């Protein structure tokens, strides 16, 4: 079954900001620092990488669109992958398609066909893009959606919690109690900016439906990502700047500056209520609307 999605790709530019927080958890461990929460060594701000958040989006879509054609997730995580899902991709043999002896795309045309097929069938390819093992330039898809690094609003404090475990892994060691360590951030409010390009959406056929799914996935990205290390993670705000055209109406940095996040008092923040988030809505550039989710 080929999934021939015929809907129109989106036609507007979007710039968006996500505010999410973590309470007593580790939002994104740093493999270079023994899994401590990632930190900007110079300023003490916490960092969550772009790929970390993309993973959450992929997992969410995989969970909610489990059996739906056209919403496969190509780069999956073992834990959420189900075999049924994996088998669901069949394509119709097209009459006019020549038998291909070589496995490398012969030309741009064919590479384009391959990437088109991948875009049609896989949500993550359509959204974030993908690189295929081909020398042909079209073997790369740049997706319309661009994530950046999330940074915490204030410097974070990473505390180490030592835990003990009653069960032991080795026999004969029952007298010993094993100790473990957890790194947590008592509280951190993070901010990430992102972009959606309508021009690139046109290339992968990223539709309005896909966009709505993206917003939904962003809002719910931590709801299905609970674990012992994550603590409580919540998306607090998604602010979307919608332009009236594909090119946009205003510089993105000026729009992002309209969102200010301030700590209300001098104490270390321990909850979202310790922050004041305000959005400057007056005198928006013409053609830009703010959508909050």
């Amino acid at each position, binding site marked *: 079954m080929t999934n021939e999605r015929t809907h129109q790709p989106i036609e507007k530019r979007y710039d968006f900001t996500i505010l999410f927080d973590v309470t007593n958890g580790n939002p994104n461990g740093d493999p270079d620092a023994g899994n401590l929460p990632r930190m*900007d060594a110079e300023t003490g701000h916490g960092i969550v990488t772009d*790929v970390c958040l993309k993973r959450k989006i992929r997992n969410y879509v995989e969970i909610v669109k489990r059996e739906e054609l056209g919403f496969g997730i190509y780069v999956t995580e073992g834990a959420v992958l189900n075999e049924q899902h994996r088998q669901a991709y069949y394509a119709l043999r097209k009459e006019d398609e020549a038998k291909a002896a070589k496995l490398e795309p012969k030309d741009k045309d064919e590479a384009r066909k391959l990437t088109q097929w991948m875009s049609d069938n896989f949500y993550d390819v359509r959204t974030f893009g993908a690189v295929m093992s081909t020398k042909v330039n079209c073997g790369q898809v740049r997706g319309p959606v661009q994530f950046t690094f999330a940074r915490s609003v204030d410097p974070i404090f990473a505390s180490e919690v030592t835990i003990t475990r009653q069960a032991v892994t080795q026999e004969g060691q029952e007298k010993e109690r094993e100790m473990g360590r957890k790194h947590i951030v008592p509280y951190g409010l993070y901010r990430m900016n992102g972009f959606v390009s309508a021009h690139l959406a046109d290339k992968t056929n990223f539709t309005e439906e896909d966009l709505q799914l993206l917003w939904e996935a962003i809002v719910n990205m931590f709801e299905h990502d609970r674990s012992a290390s994550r603590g409580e993670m919540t998306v607090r705000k998604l602010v979307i700047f919608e332009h009236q055209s594909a090119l946009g109406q205003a510089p993105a940095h000026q729009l992002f500056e309209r969102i200010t996040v301030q700590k209300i008092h001098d104490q270390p923040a321990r909850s979202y209520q310790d922050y004041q988030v305000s959005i400057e809505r007056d005198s928006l550039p013409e053609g830009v609307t703010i959508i909050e989710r």
Partner: protein
Amino acid sequence: MGYGVRLQVWGEYACFTRPEMKAERVSYDVITPSAARGVLEAIHWKPALRWVVDRIHVLNEIRFDTIRRNELESKISAGAIKSAMKGTKLMGQQVITEERQQRATMMLRKPSYLIEAHFELTSVAGETDTAEKHYNMFIRRARQGQCFHRPYLGCREFDAHFAYVEDDEVLPDSFYCDATDMDLGWMLWDMEYSREMEPLFYRPVMHQGIIEVPDLLREGVKPL
């Protein structure tokens, strides 16, 4: 061509990866002409024109930062997609937990550049492709913050903000305006696409924060 444009670009981070250090990415000290061209093309480009970067001003101090991320070890196999399109099962889905590589990226922190560039019309330019038209299109877009897609500094996760610098505007001072000349060593200039994507290199020297960029594709200009 008297049509020069000046664009200031800046961001939180950047990584202009050195080709000899791709696995664990290490950035060049400054933006490459190739990446600068990418930023300009993100705002306005057509096959009818070729952007030529003339000068790069390095406004902020060159500082590095490192981050290690989980990355995939392989690309999507074109062969597997092909057979899937023909009706066989696609068994090639990439499972991140089985194909994980932790790679470090050494990136630039708080980069800020001023790019001076002009464009030349190419052989595919039609009758309606006048230099004035494209020049005005670019300026209009850059002034209003419009872009084809969000420009980035080397990698897509390092987004770039940009602002058009008007002709009468005073240029911002570089951190290096009083520094001695800095030899930046051999750097990628750009890819030569007409010859099987051959990389071209040049040896820039930063003089008071400003790098003069030669046009290696222009006839008569010999690579160093």
